[in-house]
């Protein structure tokens, strides 16, 4: 059974801007699935429909048509079941003013039907380096700590599907690395993850598959390496036995031998060869501009 199945999801909004069209199509029939234990990256420029998609899964938005299935159950027909399976880290940082970190996590546990969740909360606080701050109010936390608190909140009920809406936006390099490590740990413990991100390096490092969304449409789904080889280029620097150097840029998918043959260089003449692999970023830029 798939962890998540999005089927022909459409969402239209009434535009608030009277100068533009009255109806804005945020999602134009998006379909994909996330397998159990998989990290799926959703990439797309601002306004592509990533957050609308996440909101449709969590029921914050009602889709215009189509449906979403979480572990086989429809979010429209059985939201009480699907909500329990999902943990979500929203894009914007929250600033709850009344309660401290520990209280927030206990209330959050209660919302998911768990009483006395001390053990899990203490584990998450330790794991996310928040244990020393458990009695602080949110406004006393730094930006990075607030992000980690949001992740802890999403995990208090041990969800089977985790939705991360740009979890590392505005986060320093060190914290980003530690969050990546934690996300991989979650994956290894069997959690399925949907990750939206602007950081292509993040998608490349973490995701088993990526989907590229642009203007409300999913334009590509595949493994990051597959996307790179199809849509990016690689740079090949060759030094031959006679001391000459050559530099070629060609499709990442094309075999080296073929490239050398095209440039009339025999493989036996090659003294040294360096290949700079294409980046997902390049493929992504190419795809959203198609």
């Amino acid at each position, binding site marked *: 059974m798939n962890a998540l199945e999005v089927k022909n999801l459409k969402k239209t909004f009434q535009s608030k801007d009277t100068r533009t069209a009255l109806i804005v199509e945020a999602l134009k029939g998006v379909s994909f699935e996330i397998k159990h234990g998989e990290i799926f990256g959703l990439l797309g420029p601002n306004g592509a429909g990533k957050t609308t998609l996440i909101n449709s899964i969590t029921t*914050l938005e009602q889709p215009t048509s189509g449906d979403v299935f979480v572990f086989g159950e429809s979010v429209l027909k059985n939201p*009480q*079941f699907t*909500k*329990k399976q999902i943990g979500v880290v929203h894009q914007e940082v929250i600033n709850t003013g009344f309660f401290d970190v520990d209280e927030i996590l206990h*209330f959050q546990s*209660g919302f*998911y039907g*768990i009483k006395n969740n001390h053990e899990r909360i203490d584990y998450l606080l330790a794991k996310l380096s928040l244990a020393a701050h458990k009695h602080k109010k949110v406004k006393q936390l730094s930006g990075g700590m607030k992000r980690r608190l949001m992740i802890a909140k999403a995990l208090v009920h041990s969800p089977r599907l985790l939705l991360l809406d740009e979890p590392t936006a505005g986060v320093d390099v060190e914290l980003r690395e530690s969050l990546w490590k934690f996300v991989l740990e979650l994956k290894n413990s069997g959690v399925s993850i949907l990750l939206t991100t602007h950081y292509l390096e993040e998608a490349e490092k973490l995701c088993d598959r990526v989907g590229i969304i642009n203007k409300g449409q999913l334009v590509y789904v595949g493994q990051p390496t597959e996307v790179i080889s199809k849509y990016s280029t690689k740079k090949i620097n060759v030094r031959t036995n006679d001391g000459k150097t050559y530099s070629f840029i060609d499709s990442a998918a094309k075999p080296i031998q073929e490239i050398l043959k095209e440039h009339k260089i025999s493989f036996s003449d090659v003294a040294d060869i360096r290949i700079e692999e294409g980046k997902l970023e390049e493929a992504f830029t190419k795809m959203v501009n198609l």
Partner: protein
Amino acid sequence: MIPFLTLIQREISRFFKVIIQTVLSPILNSFLYLLIFGVSLGSSIQMGSGNNYLAFLIPGLVVMGLINNAFQNSSSSIITSKFSGDIEDIRVAPITHSQIVWAMGIGGVFRGSLVGLITFIVGEIFYYVQNGELLSIAHPFLMLFFTLTGGFIFSFCGIFVAFIAKTFDQLSAFTSFILLPLTYLGGVFISTDNLNPFFKALSHANPLFYLINGFRYSVLGHSDVEILVAIITTLVATVVTFFMARFALLRGSYSRW
């Protein structure tokens, strides 16, 4: 049941965190009203029913404290959540809309009843000092009925307005232009018997008039309305406002301010 109880606990804990603003300040207001209107001016006001003005004023102030604080509790909770952005936590959690409405309603009733109870105790002290005896409660069960229905009606109104409101202005417009005039014209400070026929008829169209006078009846044993009419009106208002609050949860805005 745990999500529902947790939300009630959160709603009550929230106002205890800011108790000066949520409980002590309304009680000080009531104390000042009792001192100025009840004791100082009240001695020169003669009530047609034979009661002194302080006895008339105390139930009115209790209801005013009850409904204002019930309204404030649910609406402030939602509005502050809209500011902080954690309103979405409730929406994405496995809590039904009815559970949210009832839990926030109970939170409002709890705060409103607490303010109302303390206002009543302060009123009793004033009454004892003035009359040498305590003001007795004629119908305690009716008092409980009007406390619960009044609290729920205004908690539900608070949920409705806070979810529907898109700006802080819209929320304060409801408080200033609807809630406040209805409260003052509903008979907190005055008996409608003293009004001219036009305003008397107009006040009978105010649902708060039935709540305030129903509660007054429960304390004094008499008021400006038929008690059965007051009971039916408040029951209908409770049902109507419950569905208004549910509607607001379905159609209202969860977006961050």
